[in-house]
């Protein structure tokens, strides 16, 4: 019935246009936690987790295999008789080294959990951001392990980020060096408070610190606990540059993050939020 009409002739363009408007609507409306439009996205996160876990395991095994191979080539050149034995030992050594590193990492996380005296869940990093343009990571644990949106993610080195999406068996963490991230922190020496946010180049900057404040290069920046997400006193990074360029009221403070986000393998998610400050009494 529709054949030959304007609608039929241009149905592909019209469908594309409607879908683009829908995408723009999703983009402009933003999403509140638990919004209906977010549900399929969480389902996708849940569905892809097994594939990512397998790939992450294959990657670990492949790395071990490649190392073994190169070791084997060297050994063969030196002594063919010892090849099999060395290969076996190297294989064991690689596996043991990997286990030892993982064990050390988990022990450190356990120690950190005890030091913080907070309930926490350890998770493995199984994926990175799909486009590489935003700074998010995919973790191996989800809501079935007690994780919820906005929980703090930390490592033994310092603050990592906060959870922005939680599926039953996987979750996504927004790293503190993403431009959309912001956490309340202060200079440990000078006690100046500000908001730490990410830069496009992967670094951090501390905003809204008055020009009269005493901040120096080399100072440690720690969480203030005022944002209700991160507990007070966690290391964020070190100040690398302080300047007063530009006409603004505030200092330009560059911070080197304490955590090397590219080398993260295991993280700790704090499942209980730090105590909130009492709201101001009005009137």
């Amino acid at each position, binding site marked *: 019935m529709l054949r030959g009409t304007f609608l039929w002739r241009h149905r592909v363009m019209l469908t594309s246009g409607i*879908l683009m408007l829908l995408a723009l609507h999703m983009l402009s409306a933003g999403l509140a936690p638990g919004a209906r439009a977010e549900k399929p996205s969480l389902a996708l996160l849940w569905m892809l987790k097994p594939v990512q876990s397998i*790939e992450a395991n294959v990657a670990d095994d492949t790395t071990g295999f490649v190392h073994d191979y190169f070791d084997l080539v060297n050994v063969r050149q030196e002594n063919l008789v010892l090849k099999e034995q060395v290969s076996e030992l190297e294989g064991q050594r690689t596996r043991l080294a990997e286990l030892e590193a993982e064990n050390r990492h988990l022990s450190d996380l356990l120690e950190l959990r005890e030091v913080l005296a907070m309930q926490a869940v350890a998770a493995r990093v199984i994926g990175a951001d799909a486009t590489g343009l*935003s700074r998010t990571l995919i973790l191996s644990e989800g809501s079935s392990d007690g994780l919820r949106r906005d929980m703090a993610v930390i490592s033994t080195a310092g603050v990592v980020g906060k959870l922005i999406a939680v599926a039953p068996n996987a979750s996504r963490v927004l790293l503190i060096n993403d431009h959309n991230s912001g956490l309340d922190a202060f200079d440990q020496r000078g006690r100046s408070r500000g908001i730490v946010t990410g830069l*496009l180049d992967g670094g951090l900057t501390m905003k809204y610190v008055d020009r009269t404040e005493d901040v120096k290069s080399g100072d440690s920046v720690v969480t203030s606990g005022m944002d209700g997400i991160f507990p007070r006193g966690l290391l964020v990074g070190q100040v690398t540059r302080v300047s007063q360029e530009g006409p603004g009221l505030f200092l330009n403070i560059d911070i080197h993050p304490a955590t090397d986000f590219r080398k993260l393998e295991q993280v700790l998610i704090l499942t209980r939020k730090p105590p909130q400050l009492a709201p101001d009494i009005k009137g």
Partner: protein
Amino acid sequence: MRLVALYAIATVIALALETTIPLWLPIGVLTPNLILILAVDLGMKHHRALGALLAFAMGYAIDSFSGTHLGLNAFMLTLTYMIGYGLSRYLISTSSAIGVIVVFVGATISGLANSVSSAGLQSSSGALAMLPRLAASAGISALLAPWVFALMGAAKRAVGLRMRPVRE
């Protein structure tokens, strides 16, 4: 149905690769946009409303695994689909060379949109400074495009899907 299943499987594989490869190789922003290549393939070779729906769904899938703005990649992939569709329809060609150009342009625009949205309008100059890196990433995607097109072509032949676009 076969078309939907084929692109769904391809999207899952591409997503799994895009999210895990950066864990082994520190390529960061240079990660190729494999799903965008799939969207271009759809736009060039499948001239049906279903193609646009699939491109939107693939963009939504990227949004689930990237960034904080749900809808951004859904918009960009539908737009890329439209560019691919428009070019192949009006040039009456599904040549890989045109596809490679569309992939390069689409990946650059998509990367720029992601950077600007991530940086906010105040830092759009910073996002523009990323243009060389985005162009390099788009170049990598464009280099991979002929192989992805060929792979999808082989997969379509294997499941008995028609390769040429349907002229309206």
